[in-house]
């Protein structure tokens, strides 16, 4: 038997809750182990002291009135039971937390979608500028990713409303930053 094993059973040994075999085994171990003998004695004393802790006495007057206070509490609680119970503070704070998390999720979703659409628009715009500067392609519509060779673009944007990118392209042309080689559809 190991020290650890022996100590685990010291409580049961003192309370006579071990089998005869266990009892013999523990006693054999105790004979050769002063540490376990000391531990057993300390446990025995602890149990004696704990068992001697006396019940407090708040006095007869306290107990004489206790029944009435309990009855009053029962009466008030049974009235309260007829009404819906108010939410406990813990539950209410949980609800508030859930709402806040929901709101945060919606805001994040909205922000991400705006950000992503902005990125996409910017990417389309850059791509168009690159193609336009190379003079090979002209984008017909910012929302439409289809690109058409410049030579086939004649008159496309002259019919109907100009594409949203027209104004940008115009401004680029006006400032001379377009790179010069590409033709604007409006030209």
């Amino acid at each position, binding site marked *: 038997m190991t020290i650890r094993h022996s100590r*685990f059973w010291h*409580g*049961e040994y003192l309370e006579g809750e071990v089998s005869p075999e266990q009892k013999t085994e523990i006693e054999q171990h105790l004979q050769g182990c002063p540490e376990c003998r000391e*531990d057993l004695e*300390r*446990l025995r*004393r*602890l*149990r004696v*002291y*704990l*068992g*001697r*802790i*006396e*019940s*407090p*006495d*708040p*006095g007869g007057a*306290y*107990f004489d009135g*206790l*029944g009435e*206070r*309990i*009855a009053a*509490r*029962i009466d008030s*609680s049974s009235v309260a*039971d007829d009404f819906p119970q108010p939410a406990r503070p813990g539950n209410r704070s949980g609800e508030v937390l859930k709402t806040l998390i929901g709101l945060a999720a919606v805001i994040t979703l909205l922000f991400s979608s705006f950000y992503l659409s902005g990125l996409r628009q910017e990417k389309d715009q850059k791509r168009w500028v690159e193609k336009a500067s190379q003079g090979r392609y002209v984008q017909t519509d910012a929302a439409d990713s289809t690109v058409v060779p410049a030579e086939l673009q004649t008159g496309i944007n002259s019919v109907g409303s100009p594409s949203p990118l027209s104004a940008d392209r115009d401004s680029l042309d006006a400032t001379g930053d377009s790179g010069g080689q590409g033709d604007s559809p409006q030209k």
Partner: protein
Amino acid sequence: MSDEVTRLVTLFQKGDRQAFTELVKAFQRKVYALAFKMLLNHVEADEVAQETFVRVYHRIGQLKAPENFESFVYRIATNYAIDLLRRRKGRMVAMPEESELPGSVQLMLSMRVADPEKILANKELLSAILQAADELPPRQRMTLILHDVEGLSKDEVAKIMGCPEATVRSNLHIARGKMKKRLGKLLW
């Protein structure tokens, strides 16, 4: 006593409020004493005593076997005392000084000693024991009080705590180990 309690519980379950009053009288001291040993102050022990019987009143329908009434009451009281201890966690509760306690409400070690030095040593030992018990987690502390202070069997403690007997043994072993370590030389 046990037969009388069973009779009163049966009457109470049929709606006899006078039987409930008798049951309160029969168990109020036990419940208060247990709560005081657990919480170490009169105000919270009084709160546990009152609330326990209010809950007993409302939940008596859940008790299937009237002969288990005592465990039923103790279980409600211990759960509520553990709740109070957990709510208390994080805020300091001073150990009661004798002068602060109403009337003769104070824990003591029942050692019949006349020597003033021994009385002082007795008080120091009790204070150290209570301090060490106060540092235990609520369930270990309650297991130790129910078993080693109140003298209930492991089976009874298991019923009250709503856990297997093996858990009671384990909690008891750990709690006693911590107590022995904290009390150190005071146990010699």
